[in-house]
């Protein structure tokens, strides 16, 4: 287990470095001079070439690209992601301020995916071909199809405009007003959770059916065990392995979903920040947010791999 852990750690670190190179490179192939962009945002006045050269020197943009990369990387490791071109707010501070808001939506959605998705999948597998299986499977298939933003509008239309029971957008911190917070986050959480619930139930059903075919399940049946025990004690544990992987990926899906859901419901989280900074062409923000999300996903994948190796000893020796 230790050697597996170390191998995984080295691999994740390698991927992390590659991600920083990708993000850095992506921002540098960008058309336009960052200094000119910086200047024209602030003062419309004419700028001499000398001033530009001076600023270029000041920002280290006259150094070779790989030196710039290492300077930037050094900053990243120290938690410095640069400052906004528009309002000079440090990018890292803004991201940290918004993380709890995205988590406020993301964690419940993630948990709902597991709490509802796994039992739904088990029921389908156990009652394969019965009405309940057909119903849940069809719903799950629709669930992975619905455009999240469209679902958002539908929910706003039903609950916000017609029934008038829930606010249609905005965000309030739970510490300021818990009740309003819950009311405002219900719809975004449903939107965000739909895909994880649907895909988890599909995956659970599929791997459960796979496991139910195994010899040891037949043995369990032949021992005369009740269905409940066959399912819970023998089948479930092994069929959850692929589900663990999927849940790890679920975090990535939720991060992606947050971009759209936060836009629909006007929630000032990380996803909204990503979209806003793309529109305002505030590249340090784009860079910071993308890097942050990628790091979160890498950490999640690493933890998933560890869980995977823990549950399934076969993985460790590959």
């Amino acid at each position, binding site marked *: 287990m230790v050697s597996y852990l170390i191998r995984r750690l080295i*691999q994740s670190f*390698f*991927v992390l470095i*590659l*991600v920083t190179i*990708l993000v850095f490179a*992506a*921002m540098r*192939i*960008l*058309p336009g001079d960052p200094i000119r962009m910086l200047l024209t945002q602030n003062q419309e006045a004419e700028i001499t070439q000398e001033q530009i050269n001076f600023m270029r020197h000041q920002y280290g943009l006259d150094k070779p690209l790989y030196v710039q990369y290492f300077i930037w990387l050094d900053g990243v490791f120290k938690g410095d992601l640069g400052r906004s071109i528009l309002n000079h707010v440090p990018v890292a501070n803004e991201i940290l301020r918004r993380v709890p808001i995205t988590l406020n939506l993301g964690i419940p959605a993630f948990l709902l995916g597991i709490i509802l998705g796994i039992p739904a999948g088990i029921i389908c597998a156990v009652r*394969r*071909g019965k009405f309940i*299986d*057909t119903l849940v*499977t*069809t719903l799950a*298939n*629709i669930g*992975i*199809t*619905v*455009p*999240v*933003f*469209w679902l958002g*509008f*539908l929910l*706003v*239309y039903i609950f916000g*405009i017609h029934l008038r029971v829930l606010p249609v957008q905005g965000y309030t911190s739970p510490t300021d007003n818990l009740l309003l917070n819950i009311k405002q986050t219900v719809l975004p959480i449903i939107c965000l959770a739909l895909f994880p619930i649907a895909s988890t139930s*599909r995956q659970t*059903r*599929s791997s459960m*059916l*796979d496991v139910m075919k195994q010899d040891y399940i037949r043995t369990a049946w032949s021992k005369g065990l009740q269905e409940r025990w066959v399912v819970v004690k023998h089948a479930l544990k092994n069929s959850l392995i692929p589900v663990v992987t999927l849940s790890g990926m679920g975090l*990535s*899906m939720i*991060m*992606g*979903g947050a*971009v*759209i859901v936060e*836009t629909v419901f006007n929630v000032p989280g990380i996803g909204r920040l*990503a*979209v806003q900074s*793309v*529109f305002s*062409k505030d590249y340090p923000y*784009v860079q910071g947010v*993308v890097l942050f*999300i*990628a*790091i979160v*996903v*890498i950490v999640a*994948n690493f933890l998933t791999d560890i869980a995977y190796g823990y549950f399934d000893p076969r993985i460790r020796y590959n």
Partner: protein
Amino acid sequence: MPGNASGVTVPPPRLNEFKRFRRVFLGRGVVIFGLIVLLFFIIITIFAPVLAPYDPYEIDVGNALLQPSRQHLLGTDAVGRDILSRIIFGSRTSLFIGISVVAISTIVGVVLGITAGYYGGWVYTIIMRLIDAYMAFPMIILALMVSSLLGGGIKNVIIALTVAMMPGYARLICGQALHIKENDYILAERSFGASNFRIMFLHIVPNCFSPLIVMVTMMLGSVILAEAGLSFLGVGITPPTAAWGSMVNEGRPYLLTQPALSFAPGIAIMLVVFAFNMVGDGLRDALDPSLRGTL
């Protein structure tokens, strides 16, 4: 009996391969439903100019925001364009982007995947770790970043989504290639002195056909969904081009008075993506007997 394949699991002896395929593939109601929707979708795409009752780009402010009626079955939008016509023409945008992205990312992904899987060693390590790094970005974030660098428009959306979709193919083909290259017939081929190129593209790639065709079908749906997401965010297809995602967004201010503006294009997206997914499921069931009916 939708969702149930148990009725077709007992094939008569010596059923020929194509008949078996057809039997399993068409054995589920939802798959047939998906095929019908896709057929319908393709017909609409081809005959859009004939089928659309109005010019989807003709602005007629005097007839803005009309409620659905006999003249305008789904009403008109804020500048008087006929919604139904825009949905019909939007199908072209979706299908064109879907096919382009899937075609390009399949080619790039297959070449990368087979190179990694066939050669193994450090080639494998470098390509697969790069793919891992790619996969650390949620698809929509990657597409958002690329289109923020390149701007909107059909061409850039295709580039953005190709970048986002390609790693999945590479991974799939790489896994398959690792598996297939161990077969005896590959060894036999090599002993005849076949070149690496020949083995890779004449023997391994054709053997990846089944999982590849399933993935291509599913990906067509995902790309259409992702394109709609980008257009919704405003970084995808730029106006006035008719695209389903941006139509949903344009309808937003009129949700109260004219919900069809947002909901109709959304239903179009759902139907088409659902159809692609179901046909993909059906193909998988039919092509891979070990998985039959489990997904």
